[in-house]
């Protein structure tokens, strides 16, 4: 309970502190007390920041945060309206999309890493009415999808990434951010360095100067082939809807997690398709180079050859004030310092569950150094030994990276088929055809249920999952998982195989068949009839 004592400030001490600040040397902050602080910026890391700030209320800290995007955060910090900002990119990057520079602020500042995570590719795709949860994409295919070189899901290049899926001939709808976004900056940085030709070509087609490089403002045409939405919630919200079927977006993993949707496994330099879990991001970031100012150099992450790597791993920074100006005083510095020490250590415990990855030791140590630049910060606390960061191993190694599971062989690009395990917020399995399915992998305790092998049906998605070990019983008539209470499965019963199963037939099955048949007729006859009326409506509605 030392904090209470620390809160007691004598007027004299404060006056001394203020005087000292004016003269320009730091004083011991023993007399400092907690005062409210506020920040603004990134939505990529907002979910983690929101949890931290509500957690430190019990410690007597009052923190407010406004997640309106990294660009907004950098602007507000520059204008002096916030005590700190959070951004995925530093000041001063040339942004062809912004048309103007993003100059560093006149006030003193430093960068500090706060949380790591994977820029994930959340998608909405169904095969035969069943949600696909195990999609895999290689980097160039991803880039081609977001630069409209690949426009349908059954493109041979996507099929090559997914030998176990009978991909539908559905249009791909890329969903991008319409507002200035650090997530866009991270994704465009990756594309511009890994696939510069594809990216520059896309920029050229969208009237951007080339070489295009990193941008916070995604270039997109207005012909409707690409959907633009504001904010992380906007893009995730679009993909999550029924009409979002066929769409894919880039967003921090936590948002896919929270929306109950899967994310694509992305091919890494070692030839494995990997999901952006806390461990794959932790491993990936072992390859990060850190500039002197703590901004990140990610080439080593993109091409990290550890087979557990998620290649689009990165981290968010807090932009810290290093001078007493713009209303930032020593008490605020003390409070911000304590808040930072909390979230670099204890606060990293919960980020894995939220869909992020805890910062590794080297970044925490570097971050602590930056914290000490904050005027008013208490200089003597939180040595690394007392930091309850889950990545810290006893021998100084990254515990998370050390214990990170290796991807199963079915995630290798040369495996005969692909893993059937779900990803992101959708842990249920997707049955795959050919070869052996697997429930292995780096899933978080998910024990998805599996359909019975007996349900293999020609013409439908073949189901060769492992034996039904999860305890769910498959219905012998339909191959569907029985019961509506199943966690998954139930809602995605595929009707098509039902209709095709003509052989054995109890009375009930026959009724089902007839009903399904009727519905099939409706499917065939309905669209022309409906679309005629809808077509009329469309014409009537156009300006």
């Amino acid at each position, binding site marked *: 309970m030392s904090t209470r004592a620390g809160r007691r400030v004598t007027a004299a001490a404060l006056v001394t502190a203020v005087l000292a600040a004016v003269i320009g040397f730091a004083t011991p902050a023993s007399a400092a007390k907690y005062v409210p602080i506020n920040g603004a910026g990134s939505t990529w890391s907002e979910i983690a920041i929101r949890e931290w700030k509500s957690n430190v209320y019990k410690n*007597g800290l009052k923190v407010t945060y406004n997640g309106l995007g990294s660009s907004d955060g950098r602007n507000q910090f520059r204008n002096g309206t916030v005590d700190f900002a959070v951004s995925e990119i530093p000041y001063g990057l040339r942004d062809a999309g912004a048309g103007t520079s993003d100059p560093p602020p006149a006030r003193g500042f430093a960068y500090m890493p706060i949380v790591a995570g994977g820029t994930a590719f959340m998608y909405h795709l169904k095969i035969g009415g069943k949600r696909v949860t195990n999609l895999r994409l290689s980097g160039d295919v991803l880039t081609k999808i977001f630069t409209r070189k690949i426009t349908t899901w059954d493109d041979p290049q996507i099929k090559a990434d997914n030998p176990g899926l009978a991909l539908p001939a559905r249009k791909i709808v890329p969903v991008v951010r319409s507002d200035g976004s650090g997530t866009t900056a991270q994704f465009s940085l990756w594309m511009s360095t890994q696939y510069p030709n594809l990216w520059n070509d896309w920029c050229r087609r969208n009237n951007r100067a080339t070489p295009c490089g990193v941008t916070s403002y995604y270039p997109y045409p207005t012909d409707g082939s690409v959907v633009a939405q504001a904010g992380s919630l906007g893009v995730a919200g679009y993909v999550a809807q029924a009409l979002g079927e066929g769409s894919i977006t880039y967003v921090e993993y936590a948002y896919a997690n929270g929306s109950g949707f899967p994310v694509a496994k992305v091919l890494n330099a070692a030839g494995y398709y990997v999901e952006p879990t806390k461990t794959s991001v932790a491993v990936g970031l072992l390859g990060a180079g850190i500039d002197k100012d703590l901004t990140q150099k990610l080439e080593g992450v993109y091409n990290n050859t550890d087979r557990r790597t998620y290649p689009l791993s990165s981290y968010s920074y807090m932009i810290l004030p290093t001078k007493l100006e713009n209303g930032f005083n020593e008490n605020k510095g003390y409070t911000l310092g304590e808040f930072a020490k909390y979230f670099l250590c204890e606060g990293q415990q919960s980020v894995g569950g939220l869909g992020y990855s805890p910062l590794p030791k080297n970044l925490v140590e570097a971050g602590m150094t930056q914290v000490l630049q904050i005027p008013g910060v208490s200089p003597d606390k939180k040595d690394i030994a007392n930091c309850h960061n889950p990545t810290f191993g006893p021998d100084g190694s990254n515990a998370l990276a050390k214990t990170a599971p290796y991807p199963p062989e079915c995630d290798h690009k040369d495996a005969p088929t692909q893993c059937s395990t779900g990803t992101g917020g959708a842990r249920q399995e997707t049955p795959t055809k050919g070869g052996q399915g697997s429930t292995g992998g780096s899933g978080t*305790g998910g024990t998805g249920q599996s359909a019975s092998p007996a349900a293999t049906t020609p013409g439908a998605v073949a189901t060769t999952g492992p034996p039904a070990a999860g305890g769910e019983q498959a219905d012998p008539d339909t191959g569907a998982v029985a019961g509506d*209470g199943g966690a998954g499965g139930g809602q995605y019963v595929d009707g098509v195989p039902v209709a095709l199963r003509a052989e054995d037939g109890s009375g009930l099955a026959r009724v089902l068949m007839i009903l399904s048949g009727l519905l099939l007729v409706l499917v065939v006859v309905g669209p022309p009839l409906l679309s005629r009326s809808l077509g009329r409506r469309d014409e009537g509605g156009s300006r």
Partner: protein
Amino acid sequence: MTRRALALAVLLFALVGLVTVDVRPPAATAAVDDEQDPVTDSAMTVHGLPGEFGDDFTGLTITVAQTKALTSQGVVVSWTGGKPSVRRGDDPAATNYLQLMQCWGPDPAAPDFRETCQVGGSSVPARAPSAMDPRCSDEVGKPCESLPMDAQMVPFRPVEGKPTPHGGAAQPWPRKACGPPELKVTCPSTEADVLADYYSVYTTNEIPKAVTAADGTGRVVFEMQTDVEAPHLGCGSPGHLTCWLVIVPRGDHDRSKNPTEQIEGSPLGARVFQDAIPVPLQFQPVGAFCSLERAERRTTGTELVAGAMLSWQPALCENDGPVFGYSTAADDNAGRQVLAPDGPGLVFTSDPVVSPPDGPRLVHAPVALSAVVIAFNIDFRVDPGTTDSRAGRMLREVNLTPRLVAKLLTQSYKRDIPGSNQQVYEYLQDNPRTLRLDPEFIEANPQFDGFTAIATFDGLMVPIGNSAIAREVWRWILADPDARAWLEGKPDEHGMVVNKEYLPLFATGSAPTNFPREDLNCDTPPKQDKYCALDLRPYQGSFAEAGYQTLRADAKNRTSWDPNAFPKAAYKAFPPQQVTQRFAASITDAATAARYGLFTARLRNRAGEFVAPTDQSVLAAAAATVPSGTAGVREIDPKASIPGAYPLGMVTYAVGDTTEEQAARRDYANLIRYAVGTGQNPGVQRGQLPGGYVPLPDGLRAEARAAAEALEKAKPIVSPTPTPPESGGTGSPGESAGPGSTPESAVPADGAPPVAAPATPVAPALPSSTPVAALTQGQPLGSIRYALLGALGLGAVAALAGPAVRRIGRRRAGGRS
């Protein structure tokens, strides 16, 4: 006052944080005009004075609902006998309004008392002394302005430290750095810059304009700030327990005592401040907080427990108690996390978590009883040019049927779909534009007689993502035959139909676990980019945020075209709705609504009554829950008719992992014991049960204690011959899916063997008015039935998706040409 200032006024009013006063309307059917906010023993009533400028404030009677034992909380301030605020252009109150602020000075009669008031911080100067006030230096008599002529503001004096400079030549404001750093340019500071050392527009609790309705009444929720929120005021710090709420009434006369159409000037001006009404506030001492040095025990889970955890956390760490961290997570995600080897040892969920055979043994303990509510913020607004004594008052009562909520959640009112599509959708032409114009709504809400038809309602705010909250809202809706039939395509009595995009969703009969926006279509106004359904009705980040945005009356709809946006023209959000014109509502939890002082709708239950979420109605709901498939966990039966029961009462369970290490199990068990002990005492102090929660009945507390015991001892648990749960056998058979049916959860649900059933051999805690036998249905029929439903669902989806896809394709093609 400019538009900007008004937006600020609304923002400030909205920035009421950590408000914990319970202001739910009583359940009785009282007329709007007769309702009162509940007051406490320490309520205080004060009166106005004859005004300095010739206004008569003596009829003004102001009641502050609580003035003692204050902590960080919201307190209702209501008044009668005020002169109605006068609208002028965009300004809802050009004259006749109140200004409220918190001050720390010891003596309100002292001449420098005004310097201790928290006012200002925005870009609009709010502390500027009036140049027209007589100066104390050259005038005899009072009141007079003691500051020099060139002073730019009334200084702010913090409780510790020196006052800010006043900005005159004797005390100039420091200059601030601006422009590119290499040029080392400085600019003059503003009032906000000078005050930023202490507070800003983001942190101040002042209410710059509280409006008085046509009948002379008004009501605001004032956020009391302790030493934590406002250390420069220091209220509640050692030796400083008394502070002041200062109310400055503003009339409609200028300094020459002539009537005016626009009141100007700072409330701190020497003469204006003569009219100030000080109300003494006694704060509770701000106690100790948890040490940042100590490791946390992690917890995660449903937002329904967030308000309680925020209160319990600092109490639990007292006397070297364990420090608990808490983060929000959806129910299914929380279930996954407690099963993960490196996950938290305790999570909160409304649904049972069933461990796989090789997974950890879990215990379930009921720790909080709360409710899902529909919170609203509606000002009674009349047609321009008409008069009504209710004009400008906040509505306290709204009745909603399941079908009305279904309409709000399915983009079926014409204003809930983008612009020109309202004309494109021929089949929707007979649908009302908004809830306000729906005859079904008016029938249930006669108090809307006389309410203007041009009210702008930006939709029912909801968050994205799966949750038990969302599912229970849908189960309540689907249990109502009228609502269900309407969702399946049957028009209501007035011809209103559901947005067709939603038909496939309900063809299966199962309850969605989120709030989908099935209609994603866009509008393309001339010479502008298109905007789409999610710009018009965006998701909120959480249930708590939905509640907060209701307080702000800001649905964040991005449909305001800004041709000058950076880096290119774009849609941006409208500012929040103005006070006196607010019409906002959200689905949130009762604790969030109570925290922000929001009124909540009465929902119609299966007994046909409109019921508000009160202690009694939520307890009645809890008593009527039925056993779920997991021992120790009960669930709502939405089909049961329970007179007096609120339909969306929700029990939150703490789910503990018995394979955690012993010290952790003990701490988590103690958390459960605290939660169902001291943590159930209602109140606003730390450690108490915040407003919006209902104290758990004794039976549930006993169950929780037994579960805590089982968790701490990690006893082998033998379930007292559990009835094997139905395959999905929760809730009403065949109709709405019950807990555990969250379709994409990886938590194995009821199909798994019941090994995880906690050993809580406690007699059923609550009398159940629903026969349990009604749950049991034939097993084989069960699964077949669902297969059929699945097939039907798929058929319907396919039948509808075909043309929809074609239409979208064509639309896109059309857009390119």
